[in-house]
């Protein structure tokens, strides 16, 4: 006989304001098998938890239903409380009265009725719960960091400095990411590369960090503490062990007109190249898509001729390596929309309409103009420059409803840098709102407006077109009673929206993590688990989760690193035992499994094996399925497939889900087991 305790939480007004919690508790008390039922203001508070613990002892409860918020929120809390009172934590279930009931329905009898039924279902389930012991698995104390931008660098250094091994992979030939492309950083205007490059070098030299550049993740199998990462090391065509980075090959390479990714397309590079002078590693790779040797069947070969070390190796092949890791930090960064995304700004055909990232390169001392602001079309210094904030962002018509977060600040910085370099020039900024939340941020924007005399116009720009060598920017000043504004500009900078990287959807799928509708990776909880993903052991850092500035990226990276370090602080970790198993029974059947093995191919984890049942003399009696508990993740697809119901799953067993379904709408089927 079950003795179930039901604990209804008001969650202050969150549930209590909509659901008649007292009535739910009264109704629940009448369900067969319920020995105790009570409602309380905040079940998750200390007094609330103590109520549960006391009731377990006093009423000798065999199971507990806490009807409160989503189990995704507080299930661990209450399971812990229950176990402190001496019963198995898996004998506690939660009914979701908040997210699935009080928050989505109006105050009404039907809402209370729904709450009662949700409790009833969980009471029926918990009566059939079994005490379970967590599964212990070993932890591989090596972290994989995906991406070598500032977030990845920070996470890698923090993990490495706490004494654990780190594998960092970066898809481009150098680490550094977007930060290495920036000129100066807000709100201090210190040089981006000056603060970044020491960190890059530290990564390269750290004894705990193994760096693979020009490398991509191709697959991730396994689970927390026990992942196997397959990494493709793209052929660099240069043996970096031999290469001394002299750069002779780069100087001789005849293919010189490849748009330079590092300069956001504003400059050119050669086919054998180092992305930028401070690159780490500072050794070149050959871009096979553009190299004549590869595109035209072995013609050219100049670089091999000039290399005195003999480091050029055209025969190198892509290599796939497999590495065991215990945790993953995803720090793959973001991208920005190109100017071609904007029909009203000329579909990207005006050379002097550029993106904010391109402006960074123009303003950077290491950029194509050596830091002078010159426009791309004719190299002239623009005398009248227009910045357009929210280009694409916060615009549902463009499919990008969100705020890209960094644009207000960098646009102010751009206008400021322009004014510092072109003293007599005119700078205007079209903006929707100025979002300058952050330490010294608002002050920074005010400085741009007040000290550097940047003309801030509150309004959108409807069109840019070219006329007589000028870019006519047609907009509106909404603070002047929506008066139309036309500016004849020499150059226009669009603060285009920050977007998820191309291929991030596929990456999320291969990592088995969730992503939002804009393909940014999804955190496990928007407030309380902002660095974890829904997949245990995989953390997020930086702008791959949402657009972020440098301090936010670095903070999140350190947060992710701490999560990894905490995971690595134990030799074993425990994991929920909610896994499938094939039944076993006595002779002569041994198991109802008949060994058809139709289940084998449904398991994505290859967890289903064949087991031979033999008699005492070693003669085969039958062959049946067996589920490897180390591999099973508990999806239960095999459970639903098995015709003879020989496979069951802890936590969502046949008898549990059956009872849950039968409990709904059907008073008669309730029984106390």
């Amino acid at each position, binding site marked *: 006989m079950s003795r179930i305790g039901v604990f209804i939480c008001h969650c202050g007004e969150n549930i209590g304001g909509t659901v008649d919690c007292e009535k739910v508790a009264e109704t629940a008390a009448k369900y067969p098998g319920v020995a105790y039922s009570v409602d309380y203001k905040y079940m998750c508070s200390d007094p609330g938890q103590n109520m549960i613990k006391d009731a377990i002892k006093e009423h000798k409860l065999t199971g507990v239903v806490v009807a409160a918020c989503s189990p995704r929120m507080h299930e661990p809390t209450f399971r812990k409380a229950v176990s402190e009172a001496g019963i198995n934590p898996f004998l506690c279930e939660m009914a979701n009265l908040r997210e699935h009931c009080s928050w989505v329905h109006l105050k009404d009898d039907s809402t209370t009725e729904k709450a009662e039924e949700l409790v009833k279902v969980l009471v029926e389930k918990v009566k059939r719960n079994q005490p379970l012991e967590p599964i212990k698995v070993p932890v591989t104390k090596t972290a994989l960091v995906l991406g070598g931008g500032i977030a990845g660098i920070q996470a890698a250094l923090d993990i490495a400095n706490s004494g654990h091994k780190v594998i960092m992979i970066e898809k481009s030939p150098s680490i550094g990411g977007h930060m290495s492309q920036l000129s100066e950083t807000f709100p201090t205007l210190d040089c981006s590369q000056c603060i970044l490059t020491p960190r890059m070098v530290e990564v390269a030299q750290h004894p705990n960090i193994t760096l693979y550049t020009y490398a991509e993740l191709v697959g991730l199998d396994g689970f927390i503490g026990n992942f196997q990462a397959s990494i493709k090391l793209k052929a660099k065509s240069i043996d970096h062990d031999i290469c001394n980075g002299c750069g002779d090959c780069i100087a001789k390479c005849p293919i010189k007109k490849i748009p330079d990714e590092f300069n956001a397309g504003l400059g050119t590079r050669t086919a054998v190249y180092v992305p930028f002078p401070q690159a780490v590693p500072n050794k070149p790779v050959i871009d096979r898509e553009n190299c004549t040797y590869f595109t035209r069947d072995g013609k050219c070969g100049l670089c091999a001729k000039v290399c005195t070390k003999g480091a050029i190796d055209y025969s190198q092949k892509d290599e796939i390596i497999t590495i065991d890791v215990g945790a993953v930090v995803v720090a793959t960064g973001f991208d920005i929309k190109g100017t071609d995304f904007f029909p009203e700004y*000329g*579909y990207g055909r*005006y050379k002097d309409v550029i993106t904010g990232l391109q402006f960074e390169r123009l303003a950077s001392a290491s950029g194509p103009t050596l830091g002078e602001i010159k426009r791309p079309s*004719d190299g002239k210094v623009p005398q009248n420059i227009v910045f357009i904030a929210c280009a694409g962002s916060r615009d549902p018509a463009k499919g990008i409803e969100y705020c890209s977060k960094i644009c207000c600040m960098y646009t102010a910085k751009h206008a400021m840098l322009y004014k510092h370099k072109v003293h007599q020039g005119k700078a205007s900024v079209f903006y929707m709102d100025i979002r300058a939340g952050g330490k010294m941020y608002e002050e920074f924007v005010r400085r741009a407006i007040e000290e550097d005399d940047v003309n801030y116009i509150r309004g959108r720009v409807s069109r840019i077109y070219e006329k007589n060598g000028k870019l006519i920017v047609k907009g509106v000043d909404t603070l002047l009673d929506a008066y139309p504004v036309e500016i004849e500009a020499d150059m226009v900078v669009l603060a285009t929206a920050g977007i998820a990287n191309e291929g991030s959807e596929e990456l999320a799928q291969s990592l088995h993590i969730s992503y939002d509708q804009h393909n940014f990776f999804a955190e496990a909880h928007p407030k309380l688990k902002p660095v974890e993903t829904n997949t245990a052991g995989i953390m997020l850092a930086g702008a791959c989760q949402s657009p972020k500035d440098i301090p936010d990226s670095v903070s999140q990276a350190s947060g992710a690193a701490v999560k990894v370090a905490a995971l690595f602080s134990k030799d074993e970790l425990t994991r929920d035992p909610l896994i499938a198993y094939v039944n076993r029974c006595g002779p002569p059947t041994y198991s109802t499994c008949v060994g058809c093995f139709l289940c084998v191919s449904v398991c994505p984890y290859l967890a289903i094996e064949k087991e031979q049942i033999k008699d005492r003399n070693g003669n085969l009696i039958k062959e049946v399925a067996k589920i490897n508990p180390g591999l099973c993740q508990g999806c239960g697809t095999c459970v639903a497939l098995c015709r003879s119901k020989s496979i069951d799953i802890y936590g969502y067993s046949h008898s549990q889900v059956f009872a849950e379904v039968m409990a709904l709408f059907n008073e008669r089927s309730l029984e106390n087991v």
Partner: protein
Amino acid sequence: MIKIAYFPGCSLEGSSKEYNESLLAVSKEFEIQLEEVHDWNCCGATAAHNLNKVLSISLPARTLALAEKQGFSEILVPCAACYSRLLTAYNELNKDAALLEKVKEILEIDFSAKVKPFTVIDFIQKHIQPKLKEKVKKPLNAKIACYYGCLLVRPPKLVEVERYEDPLMMESIVKELGATPLDWAFKTECCGAGLSVSRTSTVGKLCSKILDDALSRGATMFAVACPMCQSNLDMRRRNANVFLNEKADAPVLFITQLIGLALGLDKKELGLQRHFVPFNLEIFDKPIPKETLGKSKKVEEV
């Protein structure tokens, strides 16, 4: 002979008669019979939709319903304003079953709102363009600014034209007529149609900007596919010239008239005598300017 339902609307019976004439003449050349929807009525542009939604849907819906009853599945709507109203009605009725029921009651016609409106540009692309090249007898020597105005390509959610800020459909048509399409910036700017009668000076100012941009880039004439666009650029030319340093004399032709000319049809058959800015065939004898004042050409050469 292909038969297509046809809704001329008020403009094509009045101020833009030549649009009607040229459209019918060209269609005949391609063995297409345009059959006017019997008993059609006002589309409700431009005022109704600001005042009464159900009325603004019911008016064009009646024409859609009649076309359906007369056995058609789509309907050609040459006027951009009519097109916008009919397409709005089509969309609203198809996504809102309750509204459809209501409108059925008002009209006292049982229909399913499945007749889809399409423009003259769609019509040309589908039925004329595939056979156009072989039929051109007199290639047009002209630099043509194709002007779309507002409602032929917008709002993008309703009309679903690619590149709605810089459409290229008419450009591809005039290219096949042997002419050079102009790359310019004001293709979809406002001509001031709504104020055509009440505020002629505003219309003049708006049109002057359109004319100025096209002419400064070397346009010799305009192609349009909307009666209001044509009226404003043509009939209000005097008002526009007030704002221009140099008086503009480039004629404004309907795309159907241009096709007719290239096919070798008679000027009169195409209604070319009805324009305010006179059109002479000699215009095709003048050399077309190579250099343009606009910057965009140069940029592309860099």
